[in-house]
């Protein structure tokens, strides 16, 4: 909405036309970009050097795992990026979504609800817990809110861990049924259906998140982030607005949890430790808080680096004919959180708005060179095709 009215620097007229079109039909632009990304990603995985890293099927499976984190980042972006509520326990809702799916579709409860129905149920249950956990924190802000949510993030996996009778404790719930969608067979050896399903879910969530962000509700979230008292004095019910942010953020995590449980066919408390919360938060911050494309790309890129490229870095240094002190001996995978930390420190120093910032944050942090801004949607379109 803002991006649409920004003056663009004189450039390629064809690119400009795409930008204008993308600005006027944002939802369509998201769908088109996602379709392109969905086609380009597998092709990229076939091209050297990526093809040498791992087999296509492994890549595709990795992409759908990355999609889980993209969903989580999109959800956390609503809470942290838009409403400005620092949530350090976001993995709790991921866990609640996953366990809800396990209860609804596994031999553990002898239930087998249809996948689509379970997605809705998981989103609703997670949203309910979002409201329940959000309600006590409504008067808190900043550090205090962060500490309370951190507590919730610890409590939830511990509850799942310790209520043996209902959750099978450490072992978790296994044998969860895979998605059942008419005409599509999901099995563990074929990653493609999961990949396509993930693409569809991410696209839908992105379109919905984008539309809500641009509506009066999204504006209300931003107003609360900017100045809560002024927002209340302009008629916003700050309490319901914040709870809505918690609920929508949590429901997205619920979706991710359901998909993850169905893909892994098992859930256990170890999947939802606080490091997951921090990883998602780092993805949102690194990607560019407040920008849907930014956080989606940030999550995707970071997940891929973490899971694939760090391993390759090890292989690369081991494969060298000569020995470099330190670098050849390091196991980069073990140092991933150190690398995260370094990346965050450097980001905050040199590019605090994130890798792919929204127009707004860019203007906010670089008021001086605001003239050199460019349209977010179209830029993201190009970037997503990378």
């Amino acid at each position: 909405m803002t991006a649409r009215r920004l003056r663009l620097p004189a450039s390629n007229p064809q690119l400009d036309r795409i930008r204008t079109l993308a600005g006027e039909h944002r939802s369509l632009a998201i769908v088109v970009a996602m379709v392109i990304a969905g086609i380009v990603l597998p092709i990229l995985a076939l091209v050297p050097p990526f093809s040498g890293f791992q087999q296509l099927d492994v890549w595709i499976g990795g992409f759908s795992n990355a999609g889980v984190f993209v969903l989580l980042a999109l959800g956390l972006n609503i809470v942290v990026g838009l409403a400005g509520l620092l949530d350090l326990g976001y993995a709790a809702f991921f866990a609640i979504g996953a366990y809800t799916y396990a209860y609804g579709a596994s031999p553990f409860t002898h239930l087998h609800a249809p996948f689509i129905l379970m997605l809705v149920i998981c989103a609703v249950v997670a949203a309910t817990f979002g409201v329940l956990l959000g309600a006590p924190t409504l008067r808190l802000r900043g550090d205090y809110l962060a500490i309370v949510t951190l507590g919730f993030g610890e409590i939830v996996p511990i509850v799942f861990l310790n209520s043996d009778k209902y959750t099978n404790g450490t072992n978790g719930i296994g044998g969860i049924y895979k998605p059942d969608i008419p005409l599509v067979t999901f099995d563990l050896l074929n990653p493609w259906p999961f990949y396509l399903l993930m693409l569809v879910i991410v696209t839908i969530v992105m379109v919905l998140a984008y539309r809500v962000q641009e509506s009066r509700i999204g504006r209300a979230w931003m107003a609360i982030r900017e100045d809560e008292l002024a927002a209340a004095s302009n008629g916003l019910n700050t309490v319901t607005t914040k709870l809505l942010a918690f609920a929508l953020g949590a429901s997205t995590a619920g979706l991710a949890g359901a998909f993850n449980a169905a893909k892994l066919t098992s859930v256990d408390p170890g999947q939802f430790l606080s490091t997951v919360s921090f990883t998602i938060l780092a993805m949102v911050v690194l990607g560019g808080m407040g920008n849907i494309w930014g956080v989606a790309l940030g999550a995707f890129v970071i997940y891929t680096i973490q899971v694939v490229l760090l391993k390759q870095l090890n292989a690369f240094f081991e494969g060298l004919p000569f020995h470099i002190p330190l670098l050849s001996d390091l196991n980069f995978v073990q140092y991933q959180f150190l690398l995260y930390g370094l990346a965050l420190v450097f980001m905050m120093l040199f590019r605090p708005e994130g890798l792919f910032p929204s127009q707004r944050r860019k203007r906010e942090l670089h008021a001086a060179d605001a003239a050199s801004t460019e349209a977010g949607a179209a830029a993201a379109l190009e970037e997503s095709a990378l």
Partner: protein
Amino acid sequence: MSDMRQPLETSSDPVAETRDDAAVEEALTAVEIDPEAAAAEAEAILATATAPLSDRPSGNILTANNVTKRFGGLIAVNDVSFTIPEGSIVSLIGPNGAGKTTFFNIIAGIYDPTAGRIAVRDRTMVARPIRAWLEPVLWVAPAVVVGIISAFVVAAANNDIVGFIGGGLTLAALVTMLVSAIARPDWYQRLLIRLRIFRSARPNDMVKAGIGRTFQNIRLFQNMTAEENVLVGMHIKLEATLFDAMFSTPKNQRDEARARARAAQLLELVGLNGVGGELAKNLPYGDQRRLEVARALASDPSLLLLDEPAAGMNPRETSDMMALINKLRTDLGLTILLIEHDMKVVMGISDRVTVLDHGEMIAEGTPEEVRKNPRVIEAYLGAPAS
């Protein structure tokens, strides 16, 4: 005791700021209201708390009855009663620390008064809460009842599925009442009054009742554009729900188009046409003040509270602001309550002036009367040395 209830006799004490502890003690006990009077007051509050907002054209838009606000030992506002007739411009003046802004914040629903009540169009909106502790019981009770019943059913049926449904119902009951308590829809408000519980209105309730405000120190949403600031102010006038936003229904599109057109009108009204796309923080100071007025107008208030609208302005900006305030009254038929230190503004546009000093009302009348009032002169300039 009685002299504290008689503002005219104590307020001339020039060393009131340096009251010793004994005086503070006395002041604290002085405001204690005897139980019978308190009961009568409570009756009056409960009787008028759900009254319909009257629309008598010649009535008082706001009535304050014996409003007192204490912060610990400090009496910020002491027993102030006054009315704002429909269609007038009323000014509230007084030396620094006289309690003007505190009084303003009570009217705007930010503070609950220690005693007294404020009615908007004959409905009591702001007063000290009555039996507010009962409210949490009200929303926990249904959940407990549902929980106990479902526990019995589960025990009888000895079936996990029944248990899940029972747990779900309990949760749903708890969340429903919790959300009602937070959102306070009309039915909930009436239920509270029937149970003889009164909770003072919050800022957003006051906006809904038709009171808009600006702040002494500008509180715009800095990182949102001027247009978005106005759109946030319009929030309560828009009807699109989350569903409408998500699925971009015709209602949502109509709503947004209407809102944008109205925002453009309002920006033009305050003389800010053409800067709708600017970030609020990048606007010049005078424009920021005007933008705050536009944002307050966006909720279509009938009473506008302006807290020092001309503070920090140069003479030209001040006279523009005076013209704007006059225009708001004549063109939009607004009633205006003004806090201002600039006597030229106050004397130039007010119909009535109320003077506060040390939290007490020392004079009220037309600008002419107030200007000549010896008590006012004394409050501003000090008593003659004689």
